[in-house]
């Protein structure tokens, strides 16, 4: 019998033990291959008009995946080798040379890796077609996908997994050299000892988590601070979560134990003591699960928010369907002709917006900080009202000659309170003009440029200022069904010169949709992978524990605990093991979202309730599925 055939026999004979490791490998290959083949698929490439940034997103996504997949494979590999220590010890006891055993393990690993990659690629091919359709749907492109193997994707996947397999196989080879024979035999008996409790560590976990939350809710004042805060946040939230699962839970469970009247009632005695007993071995897993859940929920929420708020953001950034700075009469007319000739998108309204650009200062420190030395854009009250009317909105504020109305700059969350009572000083060639802010309006009417500081003044004052400074005219058109104006928009882009600053709603909307849709897809994809991994980790851990616990439940049954009560004990422990990391994870996730909304300017000032609720709910439902699957399997394991 050759060594290779022994290795093969091992795999087939012990298939159950190998299955977990094998499945995690296949799973890893499937997700990686699916993701990479998406990147190379012509449909996705074509649908993306701004190819460069998309490619970067994909590269970043696959980097995260490689990291994740290797951690996942190493985790299941170490889990798997732990189970096999005894077998390896037996070979050694029977007189096989260490080198021979090492080589056998190496072959086994490589053999499984090869099969896993093969199966993974086949499954991945089918899945990638499904996912391509999803991406195209999100990008609002026609859904027609050809079926094909992507050679680049296969090569890419092969290289990545060849490296991972070689490393894990080498680890397997080293197993026999890393441990003494006696240690190999004792491996399965390495029972967990009852954990020590530490009040200080329990308090520290609350302090760490509290500190990280505080960092999350404290908006950073400088750019440099963002980075240091982020690092501090990560360290304290990870440390805090680990300490929480390792010590705070023990502390709380011990407190419950001290309340004899409830602890000594029914099955609580067994359930709670088992939970404490398991904490040592579970703390790390529960920490990983809570953190993965947090990342998943927050990442998908952010992705979904980008996508979800795109329409509103586009409407804010490009209030009219087409806008440009007036150039020569002939060019203006040419543009108007193009717009008028598009009969599918009838013109709802047209307006010329005269804008005076002046410099100035504001007495409100926040606004001055935003404005710095940038220009102030001034429009007249009459124009503002008229423009809003075309857009189907209204504003009932009447201004006196000494008053002005601020318009909320894009990507900020300033409110009327930031404006009210403050003064803006407008610099004119021969004098200064002091105006008091009446309040702030949210609806913008001119294209975006930084700083986006626009104020509205009374008609009389406007013409007074216009006598000193010549206004620029912005021509604005609003058309019906502006989301589908692709052809007209591109025609106009070719007509307009750089100085005309042509802004079309379609381009803004489309750009947001593309990056938003793709962000959503990639974050959603990664989220799904994390979720699947999270679920599998708990599942396998619980099944292993169930095998160890069988003896304990048998004792209980012998002393008269009914099947129903045994099931109740199992259920209570499961709810703890699944529920606690979920709750902690979701709360962490919400804090991470808070930080994200401080960093991503697009998310500032948008209501994220819907995306967060939807994401959390979906996450919860899938997680619940894992709970029931695990519960059923554990019950069956224990009761048979």
């Amino acid at each position: 019998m050759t060594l290779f055939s022994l290795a093969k026999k091992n795999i087939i004979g012990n298939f159950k033990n190998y299955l977990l490791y094998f499945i995690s490998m296949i799973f890893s290959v499937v997700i990686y291959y699916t993701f990479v083949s998406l990147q190379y698929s012509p449909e996705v490439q074509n649908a993306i008009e701004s190819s460069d940034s998309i490619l970067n997103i994909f590269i970043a996504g696959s980097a995260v995946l490689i990291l994740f997949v290797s951690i996942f494979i190493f985790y299941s590999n170490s889990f798997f080798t732990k189970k096999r220590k005894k077998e390896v010890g037996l070979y050694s006891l029977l007189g096989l040379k260490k080198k021979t055993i090492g080589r056998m393990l190496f072959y086994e690993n490589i053999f499984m890796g090869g099969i896993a990659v093969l199966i993974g690629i086949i499954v991945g091919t089918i899945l990638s077609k499904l996912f391509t359709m999803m991406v195209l749907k999100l990008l609002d492109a026609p859904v027609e996908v050809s079926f094909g193997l992507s050679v680049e994707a296969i090569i890419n996947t092969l290289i990545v997994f060849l490296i991972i397999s070689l490393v894990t196989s080498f680890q397997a080879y080293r197993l026999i050299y890393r441990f003494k024979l006696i240690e190999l035999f004792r491996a399965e008996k390495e029972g967990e000892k009852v954990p020590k409790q530490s009040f200080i560590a329990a308090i520290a976990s609350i302090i760490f988590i509290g500190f990280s939350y505080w960092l999350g809710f404290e908006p950073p004042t400088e750019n440099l601070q963002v980075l240091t805060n982020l690092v501090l946040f990560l360290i304290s939230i990870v440390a805090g979560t680990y300490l929480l699962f390792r010590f705070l839970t023990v502390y709380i469970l011990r407190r419950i134990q001290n309340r004899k009247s409830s602890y000594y009632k029914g099955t609580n005695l067994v359930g709670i003591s088992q939970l404490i007993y398991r904490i040592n071995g579970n703390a790390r897993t529960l920490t990983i699960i809570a953190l993965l859940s947090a990342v998943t929920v927050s990442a998908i929420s952010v992705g979904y928010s980008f996508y979800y708020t795109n329409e509103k953001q586009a409407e804010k950034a490009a209030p009219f369907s087409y806008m440009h700075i007036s150039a020569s009469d002939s060019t203006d007319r040419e543009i108007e002709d193009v717009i008028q000739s598009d009969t599918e998108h009838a013109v709802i309204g047209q307006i010329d917006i005269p804008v005076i650009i002046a410099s100035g200062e504001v007495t409100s420190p926040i606004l001055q900080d935003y404005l710095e030395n940038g220009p102030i854009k001034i429009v007249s009250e009459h124009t503002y009202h008229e423009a809003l009317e075309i857009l189907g909105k209204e504003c009932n504020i009447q201004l006196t000659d000494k008053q002005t109305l601020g318009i909320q700059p894009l990507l900020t969350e300033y409110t009327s309170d930031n404006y009210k009572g403050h003064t803006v000083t407008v610099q004119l060639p021969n004098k200064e003009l002091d105006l008091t802010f009446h309040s702030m309006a949210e609806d913008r009417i001119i294209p975006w440029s930084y700083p986006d500081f626009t104020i509205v003044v009374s008609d009389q004052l406007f013409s007074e200022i216009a006598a000193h400074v010549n206004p620029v005219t912005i021509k604005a058109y609003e058309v019906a069904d502006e989301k589908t104006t692709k052809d007209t928009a591109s025609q106009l882009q070719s007509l307009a010169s750089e100085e005309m600053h042509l802004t079309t709603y379609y381009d803004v909307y489309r750009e947001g949709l593309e990056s938003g849709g793709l962000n959503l897809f990639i974050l959603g994809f990664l989220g799904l992978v994390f979720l699947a991994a999270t679920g599998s980790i708990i599942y396998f851990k619980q099944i292993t524990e169930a095998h160890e616990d069988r003896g304990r439940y048998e004792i209980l049954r012998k002393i008269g605990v009914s099947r129903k009560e045994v099931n109740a004990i199992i259920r209570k422990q499961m709810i703890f093991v699944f529920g606690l990391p979920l709750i902690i994870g979701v709360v962490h996730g919400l804090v991470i979202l808070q930080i994200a909304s401080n960093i991503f300017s697009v998310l500032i000032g948008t209501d994220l309730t819907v995306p967060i609720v939807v994401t959390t709910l979906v996450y919860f439902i899938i997680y619940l599925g894992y709970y029931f699957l695990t519960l059923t399997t554990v019950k069956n394991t224990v009761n048979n």
Partner: protein
Amino acid sequence: MNIVVDAKNVKKVYGTKGNVFTALDHIDVKVYEGEFVGVMGPSGAGKSTLLNILATIDQPTSGDIYIDGTNIVNMNEEQLAAFRRDKLGFIFQDYNLLDTLTVKENIILPLALAKVSVNELEERVNKVAKTFGIHQILTKYPYQISGGQKQRTAAARAIITKPSLLLADEPTGALDSKSATDLLESLKDLSEADRATILLVTHDAFAASYCDRVIFIKDGKLFTELVKGKRTRKEFFQKVLDVLSALGGGLSDTI
């Protein structure tokens, strides 16, 4: 005197047609209240089968078993669990303690399951701990104590519910002679002072010599019965050895 165990015509057959093995063949056993009864026999005689059936862990093929006046043969799983909890106490060779619980928690487990009040629970645990001399190790975990202490803990757990019947399956099998003697003395005390009814399965003649009466089984059938009567323990021990040598097998254990 009340009859605690009344097994009538119990038969247990393993296997399917063509390949049957009769483990118990029409056995009748009666145990009276306060009696300390031993069951002996060579390996494979059916001792453990009998114990498992009386313990309601296994079902007989035919026959009736009354424990404390209740027929246990036709009970369902729920009823059996409740019955085991209320009426029976167990001591096993391999202790069967939960390693996640302290000694005290292991002992009170049956009472906690029966939802007995904390005060009564503390009172009873102190009493049984004193009986078995384990009150100093109550806060320890099973992995921190010796085999003898483990077995005494298991015995304490078995009797804390004041069961109608205490079943012991080779309780001294894994103990050194000092620990074994201590345990047997405690059980003897229990039967004399508290009138506990005990059924002890063993193939150790020394352990059997502590009983009031010893039943011998061979090949699934009742072989003979020895009553201690007025004999001293030493004389009874000799008697048991005599029967064992007539029975064949199991002798090697006694030296």
